[in-house]
């Protein structure tokens, strides 16, 4: 940059210098244009992403005030509280499973949701990708249709369908399959079902994008080389759809693990999930530092697993191109 600036100020009749000066002007214009384009996004990310995140980090290292808010004293109590219980009488610390258990339960529920979304979403996306191009638009439209309604309303609808005298139970009783209503609502199953319903489009769309790009002559080549349907799926279709599978799983797993509305409505809020735990700390429990710490622990866990994933697949891809 400084070289270019010099040649601009010292512009003379030397054509080489003139060309260099012109290149520098173009380069600087490009530089300004690029930053001009990303500036709005940077401002939004700074104000509404990084700013609140920093506040959360700071709060997690402070003491809780009795009626909410924080006292500006440095403390790691919030993090200690996550793993240990302080004895009321002698102040000693005992390891406690209470909070890690909530995290594990949330992770498990999110994993089950992700796996079921994949199992349901993959055939759906495959079906869509193998339709004639003019029909695909219609299917895409149908997949995105649930987004037209608010998530809260859709979850309430699920509640009405799943409750004891809801659509599912009444139909089964009417058909004589069961004598008494099944307990569906306020179970983990109901939470999983609700999460799956909410996030299924996030699985189908990246899968569809990956499968739609796939060259189906490769599938024919697989059959031509004596592979049966299962082997074509396992050896050709799934490896080629892998970027879509990964993207879909990430897009379903991350919002599932921090879900708030669905566990509250369909799970009845009896068994806490991480999202509810965090909300509780900022609400009734009035322990902002602990809420902040729980949120950060969740974020770090997600980040670490994502980084691990990127590293392991990135290394493999690097080897392939070497």
């Amino acid at each position, binding site marked *: 940059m400084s070289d270019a600036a010099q040649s601009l100020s010292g512009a003379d009749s030397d054509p080489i210098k003139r060309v260099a000066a012109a290149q520098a002007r173009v380069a600087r214009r490009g530089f300004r244009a690029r930053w001009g384009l990303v500036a709005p996004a940077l401002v939004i990310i700074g104000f509404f992403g990084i700013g609140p995140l920093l506040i959360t980090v700071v709060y997690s290292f402070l003491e809780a005030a009795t009626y909410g808010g924080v006292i500006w004293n440095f403390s790691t109590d919030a993090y200690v509280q996550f793993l240990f219980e302080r004895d009321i009488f002698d102040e000693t610390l005992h390891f406690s499973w209470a909070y890690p258990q909530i995290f594990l339960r949330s992770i498990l529920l999110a994993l089950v949701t992700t796996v079921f979304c994949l199992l349901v979403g993959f055939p759906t996306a495959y079906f869509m990708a193998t339709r004639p191009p003019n029909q695909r638009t219609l299917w895409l439209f149908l997949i995105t249709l649930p987004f037209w309604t608010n998530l809260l309303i859709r979850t309430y609808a699920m509640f009405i369908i799943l409750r004891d005298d809801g659509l599912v139970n009444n139909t089964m009783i009417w058909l004589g399959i069961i004598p008494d209503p099944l307990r569906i609502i306020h179970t983990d199953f109901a939470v999983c079902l609700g999460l799956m319903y909410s996030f299924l489009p996030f699985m189908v769309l990246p899968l569809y994008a990956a499968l739609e790009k796939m060259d189906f002559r490769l599938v024919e080549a697989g*059959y031509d080389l004596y592979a049966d349907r299962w082997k074509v799926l396992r050896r050709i279709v799934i490896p080629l759809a892998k970027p879509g599978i990964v993207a879909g799983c990430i897009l379903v797993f991350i919002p599932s693990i921090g879900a708030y509305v669905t566990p509250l409505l369909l799970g009845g809020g009896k068994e806490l999930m991480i999202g509810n735990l965090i909300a509780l700390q900022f609400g009734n429990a009035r322990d902002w530092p602990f809420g902040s710490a729980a949120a950060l622990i969740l974020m770090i866990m997600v980040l670490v697993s994502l980084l691990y994933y990127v590293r392991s697949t990135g290394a493999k891809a690097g080897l392939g191109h070497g």
Partner: protein
Amino acid sequence: MSDENAIEAMGLTKVFGSGPDQVTALDRVSLQIRQNEFFTLLGPSGCGKTTLLRLVAGFEMPTSGDILLNGRSVVDLPPNQRPVNTVFQSYALFPHMTVADNVAFGLEMRGLSKGETASTVEEMLNLVQLGHLAARRPTQLSGGQQQRVALARALANHPQVLLLDEPLSALDLKLRQGMRSELKALQQRTGITFVFVTHDQEEALTMSDRIAVMSHGEVQQLGVPTDIYETPMNRFVADFIGDTNFVMAEVLGRDGDHLRCRSDGGLEVLASAAGDPKVGERVTLAIRPEKIRLAAGSGAEVTEITYLGTDTSYQLRLGQDLALDARVQNRMQGDEHFEPGQPVSISVPDGAARALLD
């Protein structure tokens, strides 16, 4: 087994779509492909040649008709149970596998042992001279190399028939010409029946033992390359293969094996006949440019000369409105040479012109 035809198509019909959008891609096609033959399906795009290939491979089901492989009907078999392999138009190499894994795929699927697979893969890659690239990905190879991997992948399974769907169309001219002789040599070395689909008449003429010229879902003519070129059976074949002058003419009479015809411009020739035209009937004469002989004289006039390197092309005019294209090989400097505007006499050797009924 050697007495059987490698492939026999019997009244094969394939209709795509239904109602008003219905397209008949193949219309009652029957043909036999012999053992160890380099057989070419030649025709313009949309003539049904690729559909025929896909029916043999099993990717499409025929609307009616039967396909026999070595005398056994295969129409009910899915592609993975047919003893044929395909080299696809754009190769369809698996991008997520190495070259060696691509070639090994079919062998693995058939349940060959690791040792057998590895040795066959090595043998095949050496056959196509790509042994040193076994660990590469297909995307890291040039078009010609990808082409060879596709060949090795198909040939590794020792299929009874190898189907090739325009395998050279994605290569540049120089590479294409090299691959032609390589393919032909490979076919002779392996003794596998090749069924080759192309729209390139030069490819077809240079490589094939026999050619089926197709148009509108039907076989127009089936024969050895010289038959296809020298004695086309109809106007489509004469037009599609090579350059041809088409001249309307009247049949004057029979002369031994030939028909005496007089063309619109007054040119009299002894033509070989496709079919059995009657005396006095109107026929189309197909005359190859290189068959026309020029000499100093009268009767025709040179209107334009194009120098083509090996040949010189002469545009000629006979009478009022008959234009002819003649081609003379440039053998030696000092050969007889004609200028635009010069009157010349033209003649066509007996039997060199072809009298066609349509």
